[in-house]
Every structure is written in C-alpha cells, then in structure tokens.
C-alpha cells in the first residue's frame, strides 16, 4: 500500500514511530497527483482531449512547494521532539472556496480567477496548525452552485475516480475525488444543501456536514450564509473525526460559530452503540419533484438504494442499536423548493461584492460609465449558475414578492426543523439518536447529463438539504457498490452537536461491514497503477 493510500490516523502513528517522514508522505501524494489527476482546471482549457477524459482533474491550484515546506516543518518538529499536532504530515486538499493567504482563491469562477486572498480561513488555519499539509486548492461548481462540478469555470472539471465518465458530485467534487483517488487523505469541503455528503457518496468516501456553527465560516466565500457548513471529507470515520476535532469550536472572527464545547470524538468512537435508537423514514425513500406541468410527483428510490440503507440498519441492529421504522418526516418534500428561495436570496446578496471595482475580474472594455462597468464585469465574469441565482434571488426578495416566497420559505424551514425536533425529542414518540437515510436518490450521474438543468440537479440534494435547513449534523458513509460499479452512500442525521454519536455509529457500521467484498474494490483510476 502506498503511503498516500494510508489513512490520516495511520500516517500520524507511523510518523510518531519515526517509521516514515512527512516528506515521504508528501512525495507519495505528489506522485499520485501526477499519476491520476491530469491537468488542473483552467479558465481557457482549449480542447478537451482524450487524455483529459481518463484523469480526475481534482485541482485548480496545486501548491506543491508550499506543501513540501509544510512537510519539512513537521519533520523538523518531530526531530526536535516537539508536538507536531493531531494531523502532522497528513496531506489534505482545500475546496477552492476557502481563502488561503497568498494563494489564488477562485471559487471556480472567472470573476475571482486572479484573486489572491490576503488572509487564511479559520478552518484551513486550524488544520495547518495541527500539522496537516495542504496539497492544493481543488475544483468545485462555480461558487459551489451545483451538484456535479461541471459548472466550474475551470475546465476540465473534476471526474469521478470510480468512473471518469461520471461526475464526482458537487459542489465539493474536487474534495471527494481527491480523497477517493488517494491524492490526499483528507479534504476540506463545504455543505450548503448536501455539497459534502452527495459527492462523498458518489465517490465512495466519508463526508461530514457538521452542525451549523460547529466549524467557523470565516474565510469561506459565502453561498448561502445561513446554510453553509465547512466540513471534512475523508476515507474513513476515524479520519473524519480527527479532522473535525482539529477544526471545530468557537471563533472570535465568526459570531455564528457556536460557543459549545467540542467533545473528544476519538475517545467516543469505540464506545458501544447498544441501545442507540436509529430511525428509518418512508419520506427518505422517495423523491418528490415537479413535472413539466408543475404538478408534484413522487418516485421511489431504486431497490438498490433502499437495500443499502436496510443493510446498514441490519448491521447496526446486530451491534445493539434499536431500529425504529416509519418515522414520519412529512416536510422533507418541501426542502428543495424552500432551499431554492432562501439560498438564492442570500446568494444574490453575497454576490453583490463582485463588481469589478476592487478585485477580481474587470471588463476589458475601457472608458465606460459606472453602471456599464458593473454590468459588463458581472456579465463577463459570472457563469450561468451565478447568473441564474442572482436573477431568482433578486426576484423572490423584491418587496412585492418577498412575502409569498422568501418569508414563506422561512416558515417551511422551521417546519422542517420541527420534523427533526419531534423525531429526536428524548421525551417524544420516537426518541431517536439518529435517522438513517440514503445520501442520494441515485449513484453518480454521467457527465453532461443534467448540467444546465439546475432544477433536476437539485433533486440530488433532496435527502441532504433538510439537515441544512435544520442546522443539524449529517454523516455520509460509503455503504456498498451498485450494479453499475459506482459507490452507494448512506446518511446518518442527528440532533444539534451530536457529531460524536454519529461518528460512533459510523465507526460501528465500518467495523460491522469490514469483511464485505465491496470494501476491497478500488476506484477505477487506481486499478492500473
């Protein structure tokens, strides 16, 4: 096994025992990147060649030299006998929606393509303080607006390491792909409607959307500020737990970061799950969508997906958990429409600052008046997705429509929250510790299939978005392979700040399924190395 395929906690252990050096780990990851990633995404990619179709393209900006120096520093610390931190020498990638000082921070948009941030996001800073080594900034949907990575202004966009004809999911597609392909052990993503969990499920890795406020948003280029959550992407639950441990906690630069103590996730991992109550809800086994006539339609998820969830439930039951069926979550179906409204109102406002005046892209047309400067810079700098979101956001927040859209969506949001409150109420009828659901209604879709149809793409988020509305944590776990050879993911949702319980359940599921065949299967891009 290559060093880059080792888990973060193994690397940590081997480093401590001086069996390996951080530089060796860096070298291994660097080689892997060179072997599988192909060229990084760029604004003017030219022709997409045959070679491009078989590589992952996780990166926008690789930072090998910066990473090498960080690895060297870890080795120096180790040699001096100093504590190099929880994530010493562990390679990670950062979704290019986080500011990292003196590094391009593009949000995968032309409008920020030349923007170098003068400060570092709290989450990145905390990972680096624990000795983690940043291999570079990875691709995403433009401004995180999408579920496939294809809307990135930096092409070629990321491809799924399990099958490069498929999307990696999104918006944290570069994150999930880079971890699945062994380019890094960990990645820092963001989740606004499922943007960590959905690509994690598509790429067969672990993805965590922490409780809103668990991880500081400072330095995260905002999409929908009331929904955005930075979180870990990892290859196993233990690594995800260590990563969250390193990032979580209050931050004086983010007043929405919760002043709630961070439990010791690692110490809790091995505890028994006996007696924990896990719910299954019929509302998470069918998707609701609108047909061309505007009628609400329902469709059950495939048997394959249903089976993966029930299989996970069986494993957890065998380990002592109680399974509670038929938990009603009636407002799940309104998650997407409410999200459409709320996220776009916030997104349109968050995008106001990109006006060509201070930084980023400015139109090359000279001698224009101010209004023209704004219009041209924004029109030339933003791709389709930001434009769609601005249009809709401006529309539904206009004085004459705000009441029937935005205000109404906020009401729906609190109804979704109350579904969870009832399910998790320790004195209520269900008394759940967690809800077990599919992460996505399907496996990774083919490249080009739904790009352009942003409404359809949103249904990929139907089971993940309720957690963002409610602010609760969610954990997506690899749970098998579908007949098409693509990964299947299951999701655990828990009450506020219950990440420790979710990790414990996730670890139990991992241990309980460790001997299953699919666990031995590697992503396609790694099979011929």
């Amino acid at each position, binding site marked *: 096994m290559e060093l880059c395929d080792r888990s973060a906690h193994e690397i940590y252990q081997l480093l401590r025992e001086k069996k390996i050096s951080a530089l060796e780990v860096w070298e291994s990851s660097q080689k892997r990147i060179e072997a599988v990633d192909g060229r990084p995404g760029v604004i003017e990619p030219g022709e997409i060649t045959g070679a491009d179709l078989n590589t992952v393209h996780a990166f926008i900006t690789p930072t090998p030299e910066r990473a090498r120096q960080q690895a060297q520093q870890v080795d120096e610390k180790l040699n001096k006998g100093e504590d190099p931190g929880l994530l010493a020498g562990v390679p990670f990638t950062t979704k290019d929606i*986080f*500011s990292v000082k003196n590094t391009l*921070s593009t*949000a995968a948009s032309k409008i*920020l393509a030349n*923007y170098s*941030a*003068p*400060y570092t*996001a709290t989450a990145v800073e905390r990972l680096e303080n624990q000795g983690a080594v940043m291999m570079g900034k990875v691709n995403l949907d433009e401004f995180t607006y999408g579920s496939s990575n294809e809307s990135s202004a930096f092409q070629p966009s990321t491809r799924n390491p399990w099958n490069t004809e498929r999307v990696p999911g999104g918006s944290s597609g570069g994150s999930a792909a880079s971890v699945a392909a062994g380019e890094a052990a960990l990645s820092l993503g963001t989740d606004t409607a499922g943007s960590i969990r959905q690509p994690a499920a598509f790429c067969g890795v672990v993805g965590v959307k922490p409780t809103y406020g668990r991880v500081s*948003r*400072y*330095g*995260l*280029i*905002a999409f*929908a*500020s*009331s929904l955005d959550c930075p979180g870990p992407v990892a290859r196993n639950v233990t690594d995800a737990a260590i990563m969250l441990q390193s990032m979580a906690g209050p931050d*004086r*630069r*983010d*007043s*929405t970061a919760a002043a709630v103590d961070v439990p010791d996730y690692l110490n809790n991992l091995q505890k028994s799950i006996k007696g924990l109550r896990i719910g299954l809800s019929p509302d998470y086994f069918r998707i609701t969508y609108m047909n061309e006539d505007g009628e609400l339609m329902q469709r059950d998820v495939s048997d394959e997906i249903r089976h993966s969830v029930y299989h996970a439930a069986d494993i957890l039951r065998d380990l002592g958990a109680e399974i509670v069926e038929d938990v009603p979550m009636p407002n799940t179906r309104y998650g997407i429409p409410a999200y459409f409204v709320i996220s776009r*109102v*916030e997104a*349109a*406002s968050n*995008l*106001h*600052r*990109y*006006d060509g*005046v*201070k*930084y980023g892209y400015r139109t090359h047309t000279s001698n224009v008046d*101010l209004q023209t400067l*704004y219009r041209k810079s924004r029109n030339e700098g933003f791709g389709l997705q930001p434009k769609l979101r601005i249009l809709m956001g*401006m529309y539904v*927040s*206009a*004085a004459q429509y*705000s009441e029937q859209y*935005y205000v109404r969506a906020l009401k729906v949001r609190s109804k979704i929250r109350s579904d969870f409150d009832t399910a998790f109420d320790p004195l209520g009828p269900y008394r759940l510790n967690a809800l077990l659901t599919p992460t996505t209604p399907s496996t990774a879709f083919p490249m080009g299939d739904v790009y352009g149809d942003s409404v359809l793409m949103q249904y990929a988020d139907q089971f993940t978005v309720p957690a963002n509305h409610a602010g609760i944590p969610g954990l997506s776990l690899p749970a098998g392979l579908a007949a098409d050879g693509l990964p299947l993911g299951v999701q655990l949702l828990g009450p506020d700040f219950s990440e420790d319980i979710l990790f414990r359940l996730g670890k139990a599921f991992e241990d309980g399924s460790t001997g299953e065949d699919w666990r031995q299967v590697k992503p396609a891009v790694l099979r011929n190395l």
Partner: protein
Amino acid sequence: MTDYEVVIGLETHIQLNTTTKIFCSCKADSWDDEPNTNICPVCTGLPGVLPVLNKAVVEKGVLLAKAMHSEIRTLSFFDRKNYFYPDLPKGYQISQYDLSLGKGGYLDIPMPDGSQRRVRIEKLHLEEDAGKTKNVGNRRFIDFNRCGVPLIEMVTAPDIRSADEAAQYLLRLRQLLRWLGISEADMEKGHLRCDGNVSIRPKGSTELFTKTEIKNVNSIDNVRNAIEHEFARQVREVEAGNKVRAWTLDWDENKNELKKMRSKETEADYRYFREPDLLPVRLDEAWLESILKDFPELPLARRQRFMEEYQLPLYDADILTTERGLSDYFESAVKAYGGDPKRVSNYLLNDVMRMLNDEGKTAQQLKLTPQFMADILKMVDAGKINTSTGKNLLKKVEESGLAPEKIVESEGLGLVSDDSAIRDVVKKILENNPSEVSAYKEGKTTLIGWFTGQVMREMRGKADPKLAQQILKDLLDQ
C-alpha cells in the same frame, strides 16, 4: 395670498465615538489619517469575511434610545440593505430595519421664546457607515477608512415647523450626544450628519405634501439656511402654479444655494433581509442594567433642577447645563463652597468659561478644581483677599495647579489686617495731605473714600478696606 407653513423632518446620522469599528477591530476614527489606512479584510468586504458586532456600539445605542424615550427592544436584528455603490464594498450595508434597537421616542426642544416643542422619533437604528468617494476630473477615488464606522440613524417625524426649530433640534441633539458621551457630534467632521425633508402646506392644513430632501449640510447654521431657502423656493413654485417635485437637493455652502442632485420619484427596493452572518442582539437584564446603571440626569432636567434647587435664573442654568462636565463642576463647587450658588455661577459664567474657551479645555481638565474655586470664594467672603485678588487667583491656580492658599501665602496676596501696619500708613497719608484733612474736618466727609483709596494704593490693594476705613475715621475724628 395663502399663508404657508413648512413641514420638516430631519434624518440624522450619528457617528459613535467607539475605539474600533462596528464589525472589525480597525480604528473607528480616521479624521487625520491618510485614505485606506484603517482598513482590513472585514471592513473592505473581501470574499469570505464575516462581521462580528462591537458590543460598545449596542451600549451607546441603548444610552441614546433611553435618552430619546424610545422603547428599547431587548431583541433586535441586523439586516442587509442591498444596493450597488463603489464605496459600499460588500454591495450591501449592514443596518437594522423592522426590528431595530429603538422604537419610537421623542426629544423635547426648548425654544428661545420659552415655549417647548416635542419632536417625535420614527426610527432609531444601528448601522455601518460606507466609504467616501471623491471625483477628481474623470477619475474616481475611494477611501474605505470610513467603511464600518458605527452609526446611529435617527429619523424624526415631520414635527418640525421652522428652520429655527430644526436648528434648535440639532443643537439639543448635539448637546445630548456629548452629554451621554457617545459621539463627538461635530458636524464639520461628519460625526453628526443631517438631511432635511422639507415640504410646505397652507397654514391650518394637516396634509403632507410632496417633500424634497436636502443633503450634505455640514453645520447647524447651514441647515437653518438651506431650509429657509427651500421653504422660500417651494412657496415660489406653488405661487407660480407649479408643483413641488420629489427632488434630492444638494446644499452648496460656498454659493449659499441648493442644487438639484436627482429626481426621486420612486422608492428604491433595497431587498432587506436578515443578516445571516450576525446573531440577533439580545439585551438581557444584566447587560441592560450594567449599561444603564450610571445613566445621567439629562440636560433639561438638570437645568430645571438648577433653577429650583439653587435658585438660578434660566440664563445661568441654561449655560451651566450646555455641557455635562461644566454642570458637574458647578455642583461640586457649590457643594465645596456652601455659600450662595449664584456666586459660584457668576465666577463660572464670567471667568471660568472664558478660561475654558481660550484654552479649549473642558471643565474636567481644569487644574482649578471645584474645591480650589470654593476655597477662593471662601477667602473672599472671609476678607482674607479682596474680590480682584480672588479673580486673579483663578488664573494663577489654573496655571500652577497649586492650592490658592499657598499662592496667597507665597505671593503675599493676603489682606493686611494688622492694625498697626495699616495705622502707620494712614498716619503717613494724613501727614502728606493736610489740605484734604482740613477739608474733611470742615465737613466734606465724603473724602473718606478718597483717603481709603490712597491707603489701598499705598498698600497695593492688600489692606483690609473695612479696617483701613475704620482707622482713618478714628484718626480724622480725633
């Protein structure tokens, strides 16, 4: 001809005198600083930054809300006001909207003729300032120093009925802001900014007609001036059969005239929504209590009390309460003195105020403490020094910081009340002025004043005048 009255509402922006800005730790006041030197990623709205509320802003807001008799909301919210402008780096201003810190309220304005006007407050909210734009030729320069400076926006109801009342409102507001210690309230420096909404109507009407908005007025005199101009202009328009249009007008101080900036026929849609990056502002009981525990007696109440408690005339009470420090000084001095408060007031109004104005000091900065001032008054009362020595002493104490007794002693300023010393001088005066002595003895007793003057001059003012006169009479009447 119709008689018109003017209807005025004032919109003020008050810059709070906090050390740091409202949402970051940059220095708040940049008056003397080069452009773009007090800025950081947060106040320039770089991608990914978040605002963190400065609690001192809320505290100062609470003090003003209380002073304006506003209802203080214990749960208030920040909202985004979205609009594009180059000096607004985020493309939205963080402000308060429907559930702001203060609700309603009023300010009572005493008018010079003794009447009092109540001006109601319609809006009182916290917000961040935007930057400054300067056009030079066809280039546009932006200074972000002012971005994120804490402001309170306060808007009155259309309750003001003359340019003078508008000026009085601003005078009283400025006094109050300084009294509360929440703003330097200097209009020239933009600490207190005022826009005026002006309309006219036939006297007796209760309708509100189309208003114009006057912007960029940077002194109280200019506000009065601009409103008077606008009142006259609107009357002329209506008399000429024209309509008043909803214009925004710019006051040009140099030309002393109003310039049309733009038409404002429709309201802009700012697409307000709750700022998701900030938590709601919760004022729990303990916090409110700690903010309000030293809430001062307000100027008008104190003025009234000075008149009642110390029997001061309105004139004195009004001046003594222009500034909180001065009024505190007065009360401390009265207490230390124990005599007639009017005597303290006279000293303050005539001598100390001049000292303050000349040196640009506040009462609290004087080395002449209230206790020293009381000591001087007591020495005058006891005849230890005369009145003019007393007044000179004020200055000497202020210059040296020494106790007045020490100065009197070391400079020999005390009145001579030694009988024999004065007697010697009197004898000498009488010997040197035989003709005046004769005249006195022949009945021109009014010469006693002249003799006293001679004694005082000889003794350079240090003789106790009563004693000198007594001795003079003794010897002349022998």
